């Protein structure tokens, strides 16, 4: 048992990655989906096992190929990585469990093994980023996950997905290449790729200018990948025209992984080393976060398509996470880390309900969905519950992270008051856009004929409701994400001089 638990960090990536080529061979109907779901569930189980270990005070390190740390590639799992692993593997597992009907509708059965193989590669890449402690290895995982996500986003029947994914490919590659330039400059000055080793050696560098440039490249590159305003333009179309199951998976975790990496680099590697880095970092990110929160919510107010509306709301929510980061305090970072988890819960559950609607109804504009709650009461109920969590109603997960964010803003003095006003205004806008959805589905009249619409399949509903109820569970018993986030914030900030 101890022998196996030692290998968990490697297995986390290897299980989905090695299942991917096997899935390609599984031609008969349903087998590919079964194998993918099993691999994803196993990855989720590994993530839970490591989270339990981490909560007991364990940290996992793993030397790839037995080479010692600064020379070989090191895998390391601490509280922050564990939080991200839960989000990534959980999102994938829930989406796969719920998504059978939806994938069948979007993708021909002959191409499904290819689709699922790409899905597993995306999962392997996204879970590889939080695990790896080697900057170049992270770049490789980032590209594996990005290339695979482009494929699954473009896999659906909607032709508008293609230009959307092309834009995402261009912007994603530019972001990743910026990251690569940053890593190159650091390697040039320090001669190391291991993040812990970089942190130690950057002090010894005489001329800090290249490191400062590297910090700029890495921050902007990752902000592009994380869809931080105003670098978000690839996100709304990519989420809207992707197959619904893919939107559930990627909306819940892909931008968060980039945000995780941004925090890792800027706090763990640069913060203690560059003079005044915290100030520059905060001054750069805080205005962007405020703009993201206000603009994202304002655009969501006027969107007509439910997926697009939720995509713009994601941009605002990413703004909340960045705002917490820009405080550079324990409270702020805790709020961000908790929000990474809680927003994944809320947005994942919301997109799952969209997935349910899409299997029964042909259109996803609010006018198409008018009055659909009378036909699909259970799905509509799950939407309301997870919508409450997105708003931050007390008793839901969303409330916990909003609370932490407001407490963190409170510590900032007069500026904090202005920021609290921003949070409140944006929450009110969120009330309006969630109400627009609720009003449409409960009280609206559809422009298309809904008389044949019936409730979504039971299997889908059960998974959707589990996700919705998880929002309430983690709103009432928030110990696990909160304690992981507090330790994450501690580790990130302990390097501050």
């Amino acid at each position, binding site marked *: 048992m101890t022998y196996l638990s030692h290998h968990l960090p490697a297995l986390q990536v290897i299980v989905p990655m090695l299942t991917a080529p096997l899935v390609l061979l599984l031609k008969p109907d349903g087998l590919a989906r079964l194998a993918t779901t099993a691999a994803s569930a196993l990855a989720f189980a590994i993530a839970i096992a490591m989270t339990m270990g981490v909560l007991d005070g364990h940290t996992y390190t793993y030397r790839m190929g037995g080479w010692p740390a600064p020379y070989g590639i090191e895998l390391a799992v601490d509280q922050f990585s564990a939080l991200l692993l839960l989000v990534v593997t959980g999102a994938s597992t829930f989406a796969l469990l719920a998504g059978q009907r939806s994938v069948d509708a979007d993708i021909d059965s002959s191409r499904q093994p290819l689709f699922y193989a790409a899905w597993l590669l995306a999962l392997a890449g996204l879970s590889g980023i939080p695990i790896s402690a080697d900057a*170049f290895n992270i*770049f*490789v995982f980032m*590209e594996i996950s990005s*290339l695979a996500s*482009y*494929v699954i986003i*473009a896999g659906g029947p909607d*032709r*508008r997905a*293609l*230009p959307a*994914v*092309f834009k995402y*490919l*261009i912007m994603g*590659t*530019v972001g990743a*290449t910026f990251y*690569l*330039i940053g890593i*190159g400059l650091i*390697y*040039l000055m320090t*001669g190391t790729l291991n993040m812990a080793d970089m942190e130690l050696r950057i002090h010894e560098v005489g001329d800090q200018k290249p490191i400062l440039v590297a910090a700029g490249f890495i921050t902007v590159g990752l902000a592009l990948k994380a869809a931080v305003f105003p670098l978000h333009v690839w996100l709304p179309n990519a989420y809207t025209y992707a197959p619904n199951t893919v939107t559930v998976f990627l909306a819940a975790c892909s931008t968060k992984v980039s945000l995780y990496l941004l925090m890792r680099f800027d706090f763990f590697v640069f913060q203690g080393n560059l003079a005044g880095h915290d100030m520059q970092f905060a001054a750069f990110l805080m205005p962007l976060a405020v703009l993201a929160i206000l603009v994202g919510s304002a655009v969501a107010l006027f969107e007509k398509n439910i997926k697009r509306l939720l995509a713009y709301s994601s941009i605002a929510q990413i703004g909340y996470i960045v705002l917490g980061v820009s405080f550079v305090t324990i409270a702020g970072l805790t709020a961000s880390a908790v929000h990474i988890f809680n927003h994944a819960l809320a947005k994942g559950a919301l997109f799952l309900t969209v997935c349910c609607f899409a299997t029964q109804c042909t259109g996803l504009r609010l006018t198409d969905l008018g009055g659909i709650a009378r036909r699909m009461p259970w799905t509509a109920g799950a939407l309301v519950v997870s919508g409450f969590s997105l708003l931050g109603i007390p008793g839901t997960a969303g409330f916990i992270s909003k609370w932490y964010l407001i407490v963190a803003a409170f510590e900032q003095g007069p500026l904090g008051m202005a920021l609290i006003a921003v949070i409140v205004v944006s929450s009110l806008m969120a009330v309006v856009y969630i109400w627009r959805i609720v009003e449409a589905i409960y009280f609206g009249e559809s422009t298309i004929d809904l008389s044949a619409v019936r409730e979504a399949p039971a299997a889908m509903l059960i998974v959707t409701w589990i996700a919705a109820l998880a929002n309430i569970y983690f709103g009432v018993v928030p110990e696990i994400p909160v304690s992981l986030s507090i330790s994450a914030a501690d580790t990130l900030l302990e390097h501050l001089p």
Partner: protein
Amino acid sequence: MNILGLFYYWVFAIVLMIGFYAVIAKSNYVKKLIGLSIFQAAVFLLYITMGKIDNGTAPIFQDAATVYSNPLPQVLILTAIVVGISTTALGLGIVVRIREEYGSIEESDIQERDRQ
């Protein structure tokens, strides 16, 4: 100013910007991808440059040599080249699909057709 001594880095910066310009300014999808490839190639140059030391030889033990070049950046960049090729291939694949669906690979045409 040590401009000539930093010759390699100037090449890196100029090639990088040529590629970046094409990515941003061109509306033809294939031209955008060409720009992206140039952009990535510039980064390969940066990595290869940093591994080279004056009079350094390949890192193989021999009596005559005392200074060795660092092989690691080249290994890294082999990986990055593979990533770059995959990205270009996937990008071109998407462009082929766009051509099939829209009959054009000009950004403005496609936006117009989506609005209809």
